[in-house]
C-alpha cells in the first residue's frame, strides 16, 4: 500500500467545479464538510440572533409567535445536526488519514456519499420553513404529542423528520468509515498507544454514532408512520410520549459527547504543541475519552427528571450523571498539567483551547448541579439549562472547533491566517459569549422558562435579557471578523511550509496543502509524536 504513489481519484482538472462534485479525496471531502457546516452555522447563528432580538425587551413583537417557535426548533436542530456533528466529521475526514499516515479513508466513495447525503439532509431540514402551515415548531427534541399529526399539522414536521433521517444515515456511514480506517490503515509502528489523541476522540465519536444514531432513526421513522400511516406507536394511551423521550435521549445524551469528545481531542493536540511539551498522561487522556463515551450511554434519563420517574431510577441516573464528571475532570487536570512549566505560545489555537477549558469548566459544573435532581425540578426547562448547555456546546465545542480551525488552517490552505484578527475574534467571542450566557443562569433561577417567545417582566429580569442580547450581537460581530480573516487569508495569506508550528503528528509531515496522495512515504512510527522524533533525528544528524 504505502509504496503506491498515484492518486486514487481520476485525474480531473484541478480546481474545476466537476472535480469538487466528483471528488473522493478525503481532504476535499473534509473541506466540503467544513465549509458547508460553517454555512449552516451562519444560518443557525442568524436564527439565534433573531431570537435574541425578539427577547431583548419585554412584550416584543419582532417575530410572530409561530415564527419564534420555528426558529427555536430549527436553531437547535441545525446547530446539532448541520453544524457541530458535520464540522467534526469534516475535521475527522481531513485529518484522520493524515494523522495515521494513510492515503485516504477506507471507503472513499462511501465518504463522498456521506457528504452529499449530509448536504441533502441539511437542505431538506431547512425547507421545513417553506412548508404549508409553517416549519417544525416543537423544539429540537420534537416531543410527542406536540409533534403528532393532530398538534403539528402540515408537512413542516415531516420535513424535519426526513432531514434527521438523511443526516443520520450520512453520519452512520461516515462513522463506519472512520472506524474501519482507524482500525486498519495506520502507519507501520502506530500502535493504539501511539495514535494521536484527536484520532482517539474520533474513534469514540464514531463508535457512539454507530451505537446511538439508529435509535433516533427508528424513533423518527415511527413518528413519521404515526403522522402519515395512522399507526399509534406514540399514542398517549400506551405511554407513547415517554417512549419518545426515552428513544430521543438514549440518542440525545450520547450525542452531547459525540459533539464534545472530538473538540476535546483538538485540545489534546493543540495544548501540547503550543506548550512545547508532551501531553501529560497520554493514557489517562485516551482512556478518559473511552470512559466518557461509555458512561454517556447510561445517563440519558437525566433529561427526564420531571416526567414522574420512580425515585430509585432518578437516583440511578443522578449517580451515573455525576460519574461522568470524573473522567471529564481528569481531562481538565491533565491539560492543566500539560501547561505546567511549558513555554506557552499565545497564538489563536492556544487561546481558543484555553477558552474551552475556562468556559467548559463552568458548563461541567452546572451539569453537576443539574444532576442533583431535586435542583433540576426547579432548573429543568429554564434558562439555567439553556446557559449550561451553551457553556458546554459553545464555550466548549465551538471554542475547540475554532482552536482546530486556526491550528490546521495553514495545513488545509497552505497559508497562514492573520494572527491579530484571530486574537480580536477570540476576545470579541469570549466577551460576547459570557455576556450572552452568564446572565441566563440568573434568568433561569428567576423563573424564566425556555422557549418562550416573550415575557412581561421588567426590571432586572429585562436587564439580564438586554445584556444577553448585546452579547449575542457581539458574538455575531466576532463571527464576521472570523469570516473576513478566513476568506482573505485563504486567498492572500503568507505561504507556509509543511510544519509551521513545530508539531508532533504526521499530518504536518505532508506538504501544506498535502498532495492528493498525502505522503510519498511514511516514517516508521515509534512514539505518539512521530514528527518530533523525526525532527530530533534530523538535528542529531546535523550536529
Amino acid at each position: 500500500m504505502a509504496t503506491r504513489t498515484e492518486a486514487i481519484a481520476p485525474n480531473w482538472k484541478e480546481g474545476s467545479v466537476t472535480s469538487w462534485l466528483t471528488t473522493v479525496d478525503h481532504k476535499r471531502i473534509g473541506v466540503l464538510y467544513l465549509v458547508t457546516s460553517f454555512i449552516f452555522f451562519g444560518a443557525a447563528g442568524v436564527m439565534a440572533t433573531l431570537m435574541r432580538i425578539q427577547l431583548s425587551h419585554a412584550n416584543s413583537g419582532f417575530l410572530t409567535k409561530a415564527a419564534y417557535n420555528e426558529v427555536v426548533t430549527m436553531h437547535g436542530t441545525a446547530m446539532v445536526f448541520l453544524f457541530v456533528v458535520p464540522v467534526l466529521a469534516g475535521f475527522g475526514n481531513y485529518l484522520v488519514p493524515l494523522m495515521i499516515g494513510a492515503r485516504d479513508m477506507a471507503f472513499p466513495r462511501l465518504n463522498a456519499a456521506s457528504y452529499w447525503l449530509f448536504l441533502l439532509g441539511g437542505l431538506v431540514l431547512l425547507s421545513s420553513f417553506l412548508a404549508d402551515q409553517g416549519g417544525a415548531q416543537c423544539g429540537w427534541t420534537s416531543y410527542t404529542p406536540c409533534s403528532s399529526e393532530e398538534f403539528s399539522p402540515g408537512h413542516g414536521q415531516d420535513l424535519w423528520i426526513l432531514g434527521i433521517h438523511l443526516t443520520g444515515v450520512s453520519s452512520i456511514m461516515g462513522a463506519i468509515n472512520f472506524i474501519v480506517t482507524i482500525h486498519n490503515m495506520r502507519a507501520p509502528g502506530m500502535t493504539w498507544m501511539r495514535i494521536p489523541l484527536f484520532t482517539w476522540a474520533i474513534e469514540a465519536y464514531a463508535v457512539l454514532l454507530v451505537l446511538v444514531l439508529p435509535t433516533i432513526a427508528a424513533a423518527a421513522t415511527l413518528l413519521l408512520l404515526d403522522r402519515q400511516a395512522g399507526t399509534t406507536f406514540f399514542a398517549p394511551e400506551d405511554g407513547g410520549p415517554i417512549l419518545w423521550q426515552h428513544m430521543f435521549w438514549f440518542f440525545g445524551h450520547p450525542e452531547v459527547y459525540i459533539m464534545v469528545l472530538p473538540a476535546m481531542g483538538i485540545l489534546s493536540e493543540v495544548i501540547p504543541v503550543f506548550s512545547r511539551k508532551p501531553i501529560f498522561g497520554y493514557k489517562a487522556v485516551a482512556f478518559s475519552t473511552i470512559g466518557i463515551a461509555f458512561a454517556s450511554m447510561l445517563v440519558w434519563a437525566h433529561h427526564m427528571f420531571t416526567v414522574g420517574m420512580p425515585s430509585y431510577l432518578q437516583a440511578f441516573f443522578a449517580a451515573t450523571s455525576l460519574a461522568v464528571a470524573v473522567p471529564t475532570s481528569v481531562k481538565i487536570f491533565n491539560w492543566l498539567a500539560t501547561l505546567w512549566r511549558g513555554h506557552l505560545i499565545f497564538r489563536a489555537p492556544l487561546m481558543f483551547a484555553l477558552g474551552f477549558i475556562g468556559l467548559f469548566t463552568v458548563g461541567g459544573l452546572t451539569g453537576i448541579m443539574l444532576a442533583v435532581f431535586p435542583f433540576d425540578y426547579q432548573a429543568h426547562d429554564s434558562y439555567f439549562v439553556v446557559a449550561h448547555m451553551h457553556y458546554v456546546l459553545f464555550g466548549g465545542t465551538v471554542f475547540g472547533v475554532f482552536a482546530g480551525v486556526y491550528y490546521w488552517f495553514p495545513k488545509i490552505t497552505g497559508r497562514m491566517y492573520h494572527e491579530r484578527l484571530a486574537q480580536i475574534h477570540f476576545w470579541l467571542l469570549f466577551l460576547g459569549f459570557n455576556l450572552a450566557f452568564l446572565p441566563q443562569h440568573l434568568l433561569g433561577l428567576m423563573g424564566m422558562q425556555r422557549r418562550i417567545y416573550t415575557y412581561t417582566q421588567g426590571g432586572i429580569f429585562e436587564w439580564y435579557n438586554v445584556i444577553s442580547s448585546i452579547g449575542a450581537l457581539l458574538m455575531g460581530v466576532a463571527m464576521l471578523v472570523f469570516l473576513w480573516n478566513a476568506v482573505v487569508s485563504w486567498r492572500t495569506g503568507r505561504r507556509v511550509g509543511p510544519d509551521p508550528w513545530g508539531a508532533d503528528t504526521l499530518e504536518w509531515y505532508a506538504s501544506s496543502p498535502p498532495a492528493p496522495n498525502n505522503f510519498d512515504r511514511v516514517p516508521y512510527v515509534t512514539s505518539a509524536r512521530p514528527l518530533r522524533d523525526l525532527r530530533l533525528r534530523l538535528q542529531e544528524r546535523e550536529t
Partner: protein
Amino acid sequence: MLRKLVAAVSIAVLSAFAAGSAFAARGGIGPPGPDTPSGEAISRLYWVVLGLCAVVFVLVETALILFIIRFRRRRDTPESAEGPQIHGNTRLEIIWTAIPALLLAALAIFTFTQIPAVQAQGIEDEQHLTIRVEAHQFYWEYRYPGGEVTVNTLYLPVDEPVELELTGMDVIHSWWVPALTGKMDAIPGRINSLRFVPETTGDFEGKCAELCGIQHAFMPTTVSVLGQDDEYESTLASQQETLALGKATWEGACATCHGLSGEGDIGPSIAGNGTLSNEDGLKTLLENGQNTSQFDYYMPPVGRGWPPEQLDALMAYIKSNETLSTAPPTTTGGGG
C-alpha cells in the same frame, strides 16, 4: 494592551453581574422560594452543590490563569525551545481521579438523603387534599374532590398537605410554581403526582415550563393559598357560581387566542359568532378542535374532558356578555 483592556472590561462585567445578583429580588442567585418544606429542601441542596462547584470553579480557573501568567513564553526563549518533557505522573493522576470521585459520591449520598423532604414524604396518603390538574393548550383546569372546577387559579387551604394529580389533555405541559416547589410534567395518558404543603398564605405565580405550542409563553397559573377558617371553602364555592365559572373558562380557554372580547388574535374574531350560542356545535368544536386551511393555526380541543356544567357556564357567560353575544359593527381581526 488590548488584552488588558478586554480583561479589565470582563472583570468589570463579572462584578456587575455579582452585584446585580446580590440586589436582585429573592436573593438573586438562589432558586425561588422557599415557601414550603419541599422548596426549602431544594434550596438547601442548591446551596450545598453551588458551594462545592464554586470551590472547584475557583481552583480550576485560578490554576488556569496562574499558569497562563507564569508559564507564558518569555521574549528571550525561542519559539522552538521545548519545555521539560514530562509524560505524566501516575500517583498524581490517581489522586486527581480519586478526589473528584469521592466528592461526587458524597454529593450523591447527600442528595439522596434530601429526597423525602423534597417529595414531602412521610404524610399519610389519605391526609392529602387531592386535586386533579388537567393541562390544556393553553390553560390549567383544576378539579377538586367535591366536584368543583376552577380555571388557571388553584385555591388551596394553608398548612394542608396537597397532592396534585397532573395529566395533559392534549400535549405535554409542565406545572411550575417556583415559589412552592419544583416542576412536574403533565403528560397525556399518564397521571403524575406532586406533593407539597403550602405554609404561607398569598398568591403564587406559576407557568408552563414545557414547550406546548404557539401560546406556551402565556399559560400562567396562580396558586391562591387561603386562610384556614372557611376562607378556602367559601372562595371555592363562590367560584362555582355559573357566571364566575363561565368567565374564568372564557378567559382561560378562549380569550388566550381569540382575545378578551373575542376580537381575535392568533385565532379568528369570534365575537357574535353563531357557534357560541349553538350548544351542540360548540360542544363538538371544543371537544375535537378544528384544523382548516382558512386559518393559520389549528384550534386545539380546549373543551376535552369538561364536566357538563362548565359548558353551560361558558354559554351562560357568553350570553350575559353583550360584546361576545352580538357581532361588533366593524372588526379587523388581527389585533394583539
